[in-house]
């Protein structure tokens, strides 16, 4: 159909990968090469600094823990490195379970945020209704109330429901971990931004063809805004997965620790198995690193959504 094809050719949110213009003045080739070499040196040096802590973590993760303890524990190079110390750390530290648990919680949060934000953004972008501006103001207001501020009373709420208590079971923990985050202002903003850029003619054409709200949402609005929606999904994932404050206050049984909480649990536990916390840190970062590398463009767009004008 005409509309569908029009949709796939529109990408108003394509990022600009602009690089700076070249200097106008002519350069001798060797001076230019020297300058380039200089930049490479600087960039490499900076990269080393950025990667150094990560390097240290890997070193500790693969070093033989008992030997490491005997030499005092602070070493720059691996001691008796064994590549299977990763797998062993994984098993000893029981890292598989919290990782899966974290992923499950994160997926539910991301899914919930996506759904609620799509609906709300649609309403704000395409519909007219009383109190629209007020309600939008309410959405903005929620930005001032992150979980860090509302911690105390949100804990109380779940305590009243009996979901945060010493004998917490899996369902209660899962509910406590996910419910407060099923909607977010950021999602509404970003997706609304994407929806607003649906070209007027597409909207009119759809109206003429008698598209209902849901059909329009599914067939036109979402496809057109796909890049920004993808960006939102990524930063939503990042935020949910990396959370620490709320899980630390709401999970009462070690069994239902997220992977971030597990880091706290395994740090300082076994002196002669110091590789476990560091292996855990690496394991915890892998899902996000994978996403970062695979979807760098979208992630960047999501992170910079408020930073750049125009």
């Amino acid at each position: 159909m005409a509309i569908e094809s029009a949709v796939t050719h529109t990408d108003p949110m394509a990022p600009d990968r602009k690089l700076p213009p070249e200097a106008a003045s002519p350069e001798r080739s060797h001076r230019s090469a020297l300058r380039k070499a200089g930049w490479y040196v600087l960039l490499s040096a900076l990269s080393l600094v950025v990667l150094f802590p990560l390097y240290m973590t890997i070193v500790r993760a693969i070093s033989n823990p008992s030997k490491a303890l005997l030499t005092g524990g602070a070493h720059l190079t691996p001691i008796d490195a064994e590549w299977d110390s990763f797998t062993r750390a994984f098993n000893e530290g029981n890292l598989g379970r919290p990782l899966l648990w974290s992923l499950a919680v994160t997926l539910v949060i991301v899914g919930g945020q996506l759904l609620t934000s799509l609906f709300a953004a649609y309403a704000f972008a395409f519909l007219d209704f009383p109190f629209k501006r007020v309600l939008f103001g309410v959405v903005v207001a929620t930005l001032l109330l992150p979980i860090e501020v509302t911690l105390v009373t949100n804990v109380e709420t779940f305590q009243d429901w009996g979901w945060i208590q010493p004998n917490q079971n899996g369902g209660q923990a899962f509910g406590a971990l996910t419910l407060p985050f099923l909607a977010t202002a950021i999602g509404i903003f970003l997706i609304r931004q994407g929806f607003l850029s649906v070209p007027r003619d597409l909207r009119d054409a759809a109206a003429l063809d008698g598209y209902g709200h849901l059909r329009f949402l599914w067939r036109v609005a979402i496809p057109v805004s796909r890049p920004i929606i993808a960006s939102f999904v990524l930063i939503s994932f990042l935020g949910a997965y990396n959370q620490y404050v709320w899980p630390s206050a709401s999970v009462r049984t070690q069994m239902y620790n997220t992977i971030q909480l597990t880091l706290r649990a395994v740090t300082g536990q076994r002196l002669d198995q110091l590789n476990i916390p560091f292996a855990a840190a690496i394991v915890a970062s892998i899902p996000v690193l994978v996403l970062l590398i695979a979807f760098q463009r979208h992630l960047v767009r999501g992170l910079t959504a408020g930073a750049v004008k125009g």
Partner: protein
Amino acid sequence: MTAVAGPTATAGRGSGRRVREAIAAYLLLAPSFVVFALFFFWPLWGLIHNALHQKNIQGTAEKWVGSKQLVDTLTGEEFRQGLGVNVKFLVLTVPIGVVLGVLLAMSAHRRLRGIKIFQTIFSSTVASSVAVSAVVFLTIVNPEIGIFRDVGWLSFDRPFSALTAVSLSSIWRNLGLTFVIVLAGLQAVPDEVVEASLLDGYGPVRRFFRITIPLISPTLLFLAVVLTVDAFQAYAQMELLTGGGPAGGTETILFKITRLLQPKDVGEGSSMALGLFVITGLVAAAQFGVLNRRVHYGD
């Protein structure tokens, strides 16, 4: 944004249609707003309620104390100490964070083969959470196993040096985010302006301070606000690296709040949370206001 007629077209614009549109809108908004009501606004009301009441030590009853508890808590030793920690932490992390972000972005914003690799490396710390970055920095600053454990200004024995050690982990963690944001700002600088400055013979330094910085100032402002809010919400990195020590010297406001979740402490905890709420809002607004005047929008 103008009021837009919905995608469903009918001949008449009767009130029946408007009503249906409104109902559709409210239905679509309902899921989000239920979450907002339950977990954002109701708790805010709860904070105010808690701050105005004092529970007994058994947590079974409460009495009205008015604003006394709120005032006492916010002017009291604990809150002031926590606020001091947050402010020091802010001073340690925000300026350096912005400068490093600019440094990395300026370095990686050029035509060079393989520049994308460097850009990926610079943005990689985005993948580390607060917990991960804290554990990573155990290898560097922890008094037992850190390689810098003998460095005096990172010692865990004194509050300020312990805070400095914690700041390192946060600065590192934020490198990726700051890089990405400043780079985006640089990429949005219009070609014409840069070309014009080159034609005018601006050297790199002059170009940087007279052209680049003013043009990316909105981005830098945004970055500063993000990092500042992050600094006021610091907690996990302290818990994992110093446990709040020594002698409570690295306990931020949020850290103290997490220790005040017991029924008999919620009055105090809620008061602190309200303080945090107001302070964060004020700081962000002030930063925006003050810096906005020095920021250069458009041309």
